[in-house]
């Protein structure tokens, strides 16, 4: 279905009342507030021209509302501090059973005035004396590893070491691979020289595919792309090419799905994991099973392959597919009933966590402010954990707790503990869970949390980064407190200190190697224009000393009126040794910075940011470092620079669209 099919849903604009002149002649229009260079006038309309009786009545109504709000807030507060877990995995037994499970879910949603389910009945208190038995196989996989000096090549900026994330440009040291429209462009590189572009068309006669992304292994070039709109259900394609010959060796296709995300677990035999959502389609008395296609052949599932947790909203399939990329390519999958599109996905070499936000309407409160809406609700997150092992995917259990997991960086697994930062206005927190053995089962237990003083009034979490025992959290409405939290005792997380600056960081990262103890932040400059609202004025890039209790800002670079891709996409950021690079979007300039240690005026060690290289290139661009040379790549250009930051070579290509297809592509969303 194309967007042009939906264009027919329109209205006759003659039906719309024309009240323009009536408004322009109104008192409010003619006497409206005008913003000038001078300070705004504080003159207000005088409301106090009433008799006493209505005034007393008004005061009484206000007091009544306050009392009701206080009661509902108290109820809401206690709900916010509860959590539940569910480790009871079930399997669908038959076609009719699938229908029963889904119908039960729907009726629970409809009938339960508490939203999805009441937290009161299922509250779970932390077991203070619990000690872990055979701690689950979590690996300290974040922030590990130093830069290898033997073969100096940078990598995609990813969250977890050895768990790669797809991107539009990849480099294996011998070649640069770039996405360009309907093609992959491949260029040999060697000591700054760039070879002729080899173009691989992803699919013949395809007019509408979107967002190709790349992975590389020692054996294969893997390309993911979809037919259809970015967010809608469509066909997801995986093309696997021999890395040497660039010959297509295997294809995988899944239809009527949306790809939530993917990851590649590195190792001797890398394994690609694809996380899909597939909506239930009615099929007579029940629902269709998920479908796959491998090398053109359909793979069939059975109803008994589908598992579920009772605590999830079972109206959608979550399908996780693993593709082993060894000498032989093997495909496995796991299907679970659950919720829809996952808001955040965190993956390590041994675990997958999927998080999604829900709303609990049981503590409705009345709001008379038309800008804040009329519904009251609590924000809760459902988190599902799987373990992965050699391509086998096993659901473990769920956690349901108050707050929203804003992105993948808000979750972390370390030393047997699962840490999660949860955002909710005036109720931000960081929780620490452990999987403890209870009889024959492992259960999640909340062992510690920080839920006070994280964020100032009306603030939510904007960015998070975990680094072993430390967590940095930025909350913001307009100003940006950065909190440093000590997680070395998981049962007693403590806010060590904070740093306030204007605007807020949307991405934080600790630096490694010689720059351990420093962190960078990317985000936005904002300006307050009223009590509730602000405007973005541009972006900022900051360097912080995070060795002490209170983070210290060492340097701030501001970019007025522009928004770099790296503010919202961590893969657009180049971080390698002491280099940081990203496209600032100021005249499309890609800027490479170095972060260099210095000694300040008092003889103390510090660090500064220096500009090394600036080059104008497409907005969506990536930088790689290979053996003393930098390679800057976009869909239409590949440029190399030497270690003195001088340009060596450049290849310019047309964008990879065949024009007949391109015309139709333009009509898409």
């Amino acid at each position: 279905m194309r967007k042009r099919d939906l264009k027919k849903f329109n209205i006759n604009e003659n039906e719309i009342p024309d009240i323009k002149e009536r408004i322009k002649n109104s008192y409010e229009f003619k006497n409206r507030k005008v913003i000038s260079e001078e300070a705004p006038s504080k003159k207000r309309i005088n409301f106090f021209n009433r008799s006493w009786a209505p005034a007393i009545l008004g005061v009484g109504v206000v007091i009544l509302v306050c009392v009701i709000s206080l009661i509902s807030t108290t109820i809401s507060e206690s709900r916010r501090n509860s959590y539940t877990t569910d480790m009871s995995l079930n399997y669908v037994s038959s076609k009719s059973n699938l229908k029963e499970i889904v119908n039960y879910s729907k009726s629970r949603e409809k009938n339960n005035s508490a939203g999805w389910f009441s937290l009161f009945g299922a509250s779970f208190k932390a077991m203070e004396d619990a000690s872990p038995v055979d701690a689950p196989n979590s690996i300290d996989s974040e922030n590990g590893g130093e830069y290898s000096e033997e073969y100096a090549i940078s990598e995609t900026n990813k969250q977890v070491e050895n768990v790669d994330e797809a991107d539009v440009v990849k480099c294996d040291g011998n070649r640069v691979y770039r996405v360009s429209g309907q093609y992959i462009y491949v260029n040999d590189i060697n000591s700054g020289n760039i070879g002729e572009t080899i173009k691989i068309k992803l699919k013949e006669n395809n007019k509408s595919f979107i967002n190709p992304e790349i992975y590389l292994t020692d054996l294969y070039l893997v390309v993911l792309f979809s037919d259809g709109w970015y967010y809608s259900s469509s066909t997801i394609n995986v093309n696997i090419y021999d890395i040497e010959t660039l010959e297509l060796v295997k294809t995988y296709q899944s239809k009527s799905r949306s790809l939530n995300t993917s990851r590649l677990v590195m190792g001797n035999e890398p394994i690609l994991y694809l996380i899909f959502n597939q909506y239930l389609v009615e099929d007579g008395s029940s629902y269709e099973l998920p479908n796959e296609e491998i090398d053109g052949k359909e793979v069939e599932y059975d109803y008994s392959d589908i598992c579920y947790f009772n605590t999830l909203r079972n109206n959608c399939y979550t399908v996780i597919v693993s593709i082993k990329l060894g000498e032989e390519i093997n495909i496995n999958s796991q299907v679970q009933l659950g919720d829809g599109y996952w808001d955040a996905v965190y993956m390590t070499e041994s675990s997958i966590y999927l998080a999604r936000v829900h709303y609990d309407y049981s503590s409705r409160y009345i709001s008379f402010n038309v800008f804040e809406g009329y519904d009251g609700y609590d924000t809760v997150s459902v988190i599902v954990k799987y373990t992965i092992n050699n391509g086998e995917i096993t659901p473990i259990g769920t956690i349901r707790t108050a707050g929203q997991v804003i992105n993948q960086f808000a979750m972390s697994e370390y030393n047997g503990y699962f840490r999660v930062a949860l955002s909710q206005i005036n109720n931000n927190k960081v929780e620490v869970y452990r999987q403890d053995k209870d009889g024959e089962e492992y259960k999640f237990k909340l062992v510690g949390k920080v839920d006070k003083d994280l964020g100032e009034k009306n603030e939510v979490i904007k960015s998070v980064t975990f680094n072993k025992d430390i967590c940095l959290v930025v909350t913001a409405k307009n100003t940006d407190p950065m909190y440093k939290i000590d997680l070395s005792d998981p049962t007693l997380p403590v806010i060590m200190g904070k740093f306030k600056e204007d605007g807020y960081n949307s991405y934080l990262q600790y630096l490694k190697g010689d720059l351990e103890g420093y962190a960078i932040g990317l985000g936005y400059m904002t300006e307050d224009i009223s009590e509730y609202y602000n405007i973005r004025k541009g972006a900022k890039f900051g360097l912080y000393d995070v060795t002490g209790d209170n983070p210290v800002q060492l340097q701030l670079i501001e970019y007025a009126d522009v928004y770099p891709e790296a503010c919202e996409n961590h893969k657009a950021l180049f971080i390698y040794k002491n280099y940081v690079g990203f496209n600032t979007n100021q005249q499309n300039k890609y800027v490479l910075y170095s972060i260099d240690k210095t000694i300040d005026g008092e003889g103390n060690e510090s660090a500064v940011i220096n500009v090394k290289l600036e080059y104008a290139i497409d907005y969506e661009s990536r930088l790689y470092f290979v053996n003393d040379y930098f390679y800057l790549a976009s869909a239409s250009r590949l440029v190399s620079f030497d270690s003195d930051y001088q340009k060596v070579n450049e290849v310019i290509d047309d964008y990879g669209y065949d024009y007949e297809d391109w015309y139709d592509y333009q009509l898409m969303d």
Partner: protein
Amino acid sequence: MIYNDLDKMVVRFLKGEDDAFDYIYDETKKTVYLSIYQIFKSKDKIEDIMQDTYLKAIENMHKYEIGTNFKAWIAKIARNLAINDYNKNKIIEHVDDFDDFENDKKNSDISLVDRAYEILDANPVKYEKEVFTYRIVIGLGYREIGEILDIPKSTVFDIYNRCIKKIKELL
């Protein structure tokens, strides 16, 4: 900052240029109308709430965050005013209650949008009609719709997919 034309007009309007309102009105009237039309069908009622919406928007336009989405901002005002009015009076409007509606819309003239609403109303799901209106008829993005309805983008996406399936017979 490179703002879109609508935001530029908002800035000019805030600085006192009356003529800028013409552009603002023309660009947003469909969005405002449809935000109210989901709840009320009476022409008089829609006009009243449209007027209230624009007056409220004029009064609070200095609070709008330039560079976000003005259509989503004013849609939220319109929707909330309509909901507040509905809650106050709890009048469920049926198409055949209103002579003017009957005069204006005979069966053969019922638009595809109204037919879609009928299908969605037959088995109503929360926010489905709103997502249909904002996404398909007006063309707002998922994030913007989420801001109007105060729900996450992922929820908008879910609802949108369900909605498309329901109205597919009209495609």
